[in-house]
C-alpha cells in the first residue's frame, strides 16, 4: 500500500470542500470543523496503510470527523460541568450533533459558499476563506499565490472565522430577496480568483495555473448547485474559454503572446467545446447578464481558426451591449478596439482617444498599449512609440512589460 498517501491527498483535493461544509453545519464552527477534518485525514494516513483504502474514502473521512466532533463536544461538556459558575445558554453540542447526523444528506457547500463570500467579510478574506474551505488549498499555498506572508494570511483567516462566529454570519443560502445580489458577490469572488491566476501579474506560474484550475472547479461546483442560473453557466464558460488559451499565451521564456499572434493549434479544444456549449445554454435563458456577454465574446474569439476569421463586428456589438449593463472605461476601451478592427482604425482610434480625454484611463497602461497598437497598424510609428513608452512607464507586470518593450524595439529598428 505504497500509494495510500496519494489516495489521501486525492480525496482531500476532491472531497474536502463537501466534507468540511457538512461538518461546519453540524458543529456551527469553522475551527472545530477544520480541526475534526484534519484529525480525520491524519487518522486516514495511519489507518489506510494497515487496513487498506476503504471502498468510499470520502464517507470514511466524514464518519471519522463526525466522531471527532462528538469527542470534542463531550470534552467541552465535561469542562463546562466543572465550571458551574458560568451559565451557557446554548444547547449541548453533543446532542445537536447526534440529531443532525441523522438528517437527510444535503449539499452544504452552497451554504458554505454564501457564508465565505458574505459582504460583511473583507474581500481578501472572502477569497482566502473560499479557497481554504471549499478549494481545500492550504494556508501556505494561498499565501504563495497571493504573495502575502503566510502569517498575514493566517491572521486574516482567523479574524474572518472569528467574525463569522461572533457576529453570527449565517450559514445558509440567502433568502430569495437578497439572493440575486449575494450570488453576484459569490461570482465576483470566483472570478477574482481566476483572474489572479490568469493575469500572471507576478509570481510563480505553476501556482497561478493552480489558481485558475481551482476557480474553474469552484465555478463548476456553483453550476452543479445552482444550474438554473445562466450567469453561473456563463462564468464557468468564460473561465474555460480563457483557460483554453493558456499554452498559447506565452513563450517558453515567459513572453506574453497577444491573442492575434497566438498559435491557435495550442488552444485546448475540449475546453472550447465545453465553453461554447455552456454559453449557448446560458444565452438560451434570455436573461442576459455581464458574464454571458463576456463569455459570448470569448466564444467568438474561440470560434475563429485564424485571426482573420474573427467576427469583429459581432464582438463590437457584444461590447456595445456590455457597456449598457456594465459601463466601465475598460469595457469601453475593448469596444473601441473591436470597432477599430471591424469598421475602421480611424474611427476606433477616435473612440480610444475620446476615452483617454476623460482622464480616468490616462494612468492605465493598457489604454496606452491599445492606443499604441492602433497607431502602429496605421503606420503612425512615431506616435505609437510614444504611447508604448507611456505604457511601459505605467506597468509593473513583467510579462506585459516585455511585450511593450518588444514592440518598442521593433519600431525602433524600423526607424
Amino acid at each position, binding site marked *: 500500500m505504497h500509494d495510500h498517501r496519494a489516495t489521501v491527498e486525492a480525496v482531500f483535493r476532491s472531497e474536502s470542500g463537501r466534507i468540511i461544509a457538512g461538518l461546519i453545519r453540524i458543529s456551527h464552527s469553522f475551527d472545530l470543523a477544520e480541526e475534526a477534518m484534519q484529525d480525520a485525514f491524519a487518522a486516514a494516513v495511519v489507518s489506510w496503510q494497515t487496513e487498506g483504502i476503504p471502498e468510499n474514502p470520502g464517507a470514511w473521512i466524514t464518519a471519522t470527523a463526525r466522531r471527532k466532533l462528538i469527542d470534542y463536544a463531550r470534552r467541552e461538556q465535561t469542562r463546562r460541568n466543572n465550571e458551574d459558575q*458560568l451559565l451557557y445558554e446554548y444547547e449541548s453540542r453533543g446532542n445537536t450533533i447526534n440529531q443532525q447526523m441523522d438528517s437527510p444528506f444535503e449539499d452544504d457547500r452552497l451554504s458554505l459558499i454564501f457564508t465565505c463570500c458574505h459582504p460583511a467579510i473583507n474581500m481578501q478574506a472572502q477569497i482566502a476563506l473560499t479557497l481554504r474551505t471549499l478549494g481545500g488549498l492550504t494556508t501556505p499555498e494561498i499565501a504563495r499565490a497571493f504573495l502575502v506572508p503566510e502569517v498575514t494570511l493566517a491572521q486574516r483567516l482567523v479574524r474572518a472565522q472569528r467574525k463569522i462566529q461572533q457576529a453570527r*454570519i*449565517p450559514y445558509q443560502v440567502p433568502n430569495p430577496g437578497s439572493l440575486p445580489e449575494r450570488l453576484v458577490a459569490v461570482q465576483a469572488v470566483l472570478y477574482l480568483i481566476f483572474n489572479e491566476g490568469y493575469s500572471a501579474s507576478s509570481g510563480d506560474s505553476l501556482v497561478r495555473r493552480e489558481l485558475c484550475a481551482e476557480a474553474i472547479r469552484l465555478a463548476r461546483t456553483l453550476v452543479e448547485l445552482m444550474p438554473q442560473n445562466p450567469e453561473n453557466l456563463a462564468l464557468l464558460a468564460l473561465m474555460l474559454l480563457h483557460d483554453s488559451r493558456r499554452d498559447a499565451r506565452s513563450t517558453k521564456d515567459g513572453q506574453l503572446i497577444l491573442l492575434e499572434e497566438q498559435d491557435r493549434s495550442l488552444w485546448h479544444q475540449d475546453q472550447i467545446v465545453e465553453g461554447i456549449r455552456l454559453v449557448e445554454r446560458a444565452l438560451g435563458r434570455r436573461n442576459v447578464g455581464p458574464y454571458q456577454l463576456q463569455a459570448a465574446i470569448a466564444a467568438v474569439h474561440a470560434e475563429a481558426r485564424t485571426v482573420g476569421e474573427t467576427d469583429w463586428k459581432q464582438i463590437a456589438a457584444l461590447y456595445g451591449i456590455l457597456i449598457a449593463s456594465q459601463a466601465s472605461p475598460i469595457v469601453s476601451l475593448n469596444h473601441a478596439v473591436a470597432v477599430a478592427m471591424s469598421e475602421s482604425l480611424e474611427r476606433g482610434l477616435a473612440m480610444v482617444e475620446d476615452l483617454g480625454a476623460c482622464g480616468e484611463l490616462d494612468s492605465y497602461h493598457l489604454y496606452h498599449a491599445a492606443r499604441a497598437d492602433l497607431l502602429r497598424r496605421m503606420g503612425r510609428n512615431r506616435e505609437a512609440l510614444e504611447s508604448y513608452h507611456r505604457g511601459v512607464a505605467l506597468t509593473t507586470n513583467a510579462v506585459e512589460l516585455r511585450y511593450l518593450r518588444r514592440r518598442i524595439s521593433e519600431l525602433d529598428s524600423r526607424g
Partner: protein
Amino acid sequence: MRYMMLIYSNEDESATPEEMRTVASAHEAVMDETRERGIFRAADPLQPSATATTVRVQDGKALVTDGPFAETKEQLAGYYILECQDLDEALAWAAKIPTACAGGAGCVEIRPVREFSQRPPVNA
C-alpha cells in the same frame, strides 16, 4: 443575539423641518415594527457631539477634555439595540434606520453585543 446599531451622522449639515419629520417618522416605523415583533430592546438619540466630554484616567487621575473621543465628520448620533437571529437580519434592520439626523446621509455600524453568559469562542 443582541446587536447594537450605532448611528453615525454628519452634524455639519442642516436639515429642513420637513426633512427632520421624514427622519423621525422613519425611526418611529422601525421602532414600531421591531416592538411588534418583540425584538426591540432599546433606542435613543444623542445630543450633538458639541455636548461631549471625554474622560481618560491616567495614573489614577481623571483627565477631562472637551469634545468627542475622535474628531471626525460623522459623529455618533444615536443607537438601537435589537434582538436578531443573525447578522443578515441585523443588516436588514440597519438598512431601514435613517442616518440623516441633521441632513446628509451617514451610516450605521453593527456590533454584536457580547453576552456575559457566552464565552468567546476558543481559538485553537
